């Protein structure tokens, strides 16, 4: 009975994450799909803080936290060591971090890990900002978002830059398996984790995980917002194998929504709905339209099919 329970939840409840935390949902699904034969290297961030407040731990798998920017290097060291010691059979290495720990401060280490081809599954929980330190802007914060370091004012409409394209940076490194996923699509997410674990070489999965306080949403809307990000084409769900897009999450024409439906419930975008914000919203709609065209996101055929 005890064993059965552990197989269901390798990241246990009882942690101190916010109600409705998208990252906690994402991490639980990742571990559920990955199974118990893993070792996890976790970067500094919310996930580390709310799951391992000493003397408690939510982790039923061997788990290490070292620093903010080195989860990928620690994971690489574990992989090399296990192989050198002949203990690599039947064990997989997972590195996981938030968007800041991945795309900003962790960039050097992640690039080294990919270039050397370590067999590590890297999971980026993308909540689009430094939420652990109080909602500051990161390289993955979207255009127009208010954070505490990109506050809107008389001279600003919030964050001035576009989301850094981490999946394509991974592809440029020759990472053989790259995927994006959303906590609103749990079966797709878990399938991708299982697939990534089978890859010979590095793999990268970036999961959109709404942050309740950082995005300024109600707890109950967390999954809903993740779904809207997909249905507005702001967060395309892709699978890229050996540099080729092999699968795209399609949106049925009657499910396609304007970006305002995604932006409006979030306090981080509230300033865009004041007078003069139309121009900024149009720029965000342009991003969605570009994604729609580039990845052929809208189609009547079933939602997970091969793209042409």
């Amino acid at each position, binding site marked *: 009975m005890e064993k059965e329970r552990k197989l269901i939840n390798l990241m246990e409840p009882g942690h101190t994450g916010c109600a409705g935390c998208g990252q906690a949902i994402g991490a639980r699904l990742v571990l559920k799909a990955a199974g*118990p034969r893993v*070792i996890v290297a976790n970067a500094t961030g919310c996930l580390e803080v709310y799951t391992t407040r000493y003397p408690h*731990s939510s982790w039923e798998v061997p*788990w290490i936290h*070292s620093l903010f920017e*080195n989860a990928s290097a620690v994971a*690489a060291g574990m992989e090399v*060591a296990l192989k050198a010691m002949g203990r690599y059979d039947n064990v997989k290495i997972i590195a996981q971090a938030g968007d800041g720990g991945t795309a900003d401060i962790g960039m050097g280490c992640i690039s*080294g890990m990919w270039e050397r081809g370590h067999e590590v599954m890297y999971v980026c929980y993308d909540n689009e900002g430094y939420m652990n330190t109080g909602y500051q802007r990161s390289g993955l914060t979207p255009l127009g978002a208010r954070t505490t370091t990109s506050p809107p004012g008389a001279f600003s409409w919030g964050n001035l830059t576009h989301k850094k394209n981490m999946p394509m940076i991974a592809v440029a490194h020759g990472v053989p398996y790259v995927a994006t996923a959303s906590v609103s699509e749990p079966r797709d997410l878990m399938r991708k984790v299982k697939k990534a674990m089978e890859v010979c070489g590095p793999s990268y999965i970036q999961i959109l995980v709404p942050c309740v306080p950082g995005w300024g949403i109600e707890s109950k809307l967390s999954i809903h917002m993740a779904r809207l990000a997909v249905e507005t084409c702001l967060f395309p769900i892709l699978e890229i194998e050996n540099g080729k897009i092999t699968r795209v999450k399609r949106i049925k024409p009657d499910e396609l929504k304007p970006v305002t439906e995604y932006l409006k419930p979030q306090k981080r975008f509230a300033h865009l709905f004041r007078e003069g914000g139309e121009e900024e919203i149009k720029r965000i709609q342009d991003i969605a339209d570009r994604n729609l065209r580039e990845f052929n996101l809208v189609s009547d055929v079933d939602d997970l099919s091969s793209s042409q």
Partner: protein
Amino acid sequence: MRMIVEGSVAVAEAVGRCRPQVACAYPITPQTHIVEHLAKMVSEGRLKAGFVLAESEFGAASIVLGASAVGARAYTATSSQGLLLMSEVIFNIAGLRLPVVMTCANRAVSAPINIWNDQQDAVSLRDTGWIILFVEDNQEAVDTHIQAFMIAEELMIPVMVCMDGYVLTHTMEPVEMPSQEEVDDFLPPYSPSYYLDPDDPFTMGAMVGPDAYMESRFHLHMDMMEARSTISRVALGFQQKFGRYHGDLVDGYLLDDAEIVLVSMGSLLGTMREAAERLRKDGLKVGILKVRCFRPFPKERVHAALRPGQVVGVVEKDISLGLEGTLCSEIRSAFCGEDSPDISSFIVGLGGRDVTVEDIISIAWDLRSNPACRVEFRGLREDLMKGDEG
């Protein structure tokens, strides 16, 4: 087996005989020859280790951290800026109680950029929770690396072995290289009592709040203090096995009747021994105190080695800017008030400036004529000391 090789080659050969399961580094002068030789040993099949060429020293330190966390014997080497770039990981490795062994080929720190030898790099990381050992010559470098793995793994505390860049790393000297069988006989395989393993999961590196953080630092401090006896015991065990002894925590030379004592770390000791012998011929009773173990600092041993009435000059290749030489402050800390000899700080050899036997001799004579406690830079160029007079 006697070999006549560069210090770097000697260290790489010795480390190889310690059978690290993971070796990882990033090239920086003057550490490079160590890594190059390890790469050669791997390519020749003489070193069976996971050998990783990292994207930075920060990455290299993180990689050996990960390797050590799953129970591997792990080694890295660096210098100067590389050590400073590692520094966040250096603290972390010690806090996680991972017995990594590292060579620091000591070099000056920028700015101004300078690739030559002094000891500012390692001295600046004295508070990290690493055991820091300084070696005097290439034989001691070989022997200390073999001891370092034993010390680290017994205590679960990382060890940094410091050897002066160029002066040792790039200098050919004859060294007695133990055979693989001899090292195997001395150093058992690493078998940690805990490591990350799916068969026995646990959480390493948890978030610790004000309720328990202080205790974790206290335990590391107490274990560092305890490490002094382990370091001494391992040095004696090594002597029994190999017949060589380079001191344990400290080593005295001609101290018994010494009126003037010169204190230092690293390759300067050889120069100072020669100076002491010459000075004694001229009637000046000079002794030498070698600090082999910089952290944990052997306060009691220093206290026992020196006495009131002596004049002590701490001669070192680093400076705590705005105070004095760092080793000098540590030596002072062994005494309180009246029991203290007169202790002066002499800063020499920064950024690779030569320190000659004559330089040491002149320090000794100056201490004889003026025992007052002071801080002095020695060997400064007069032509660069003038103000902006046009």
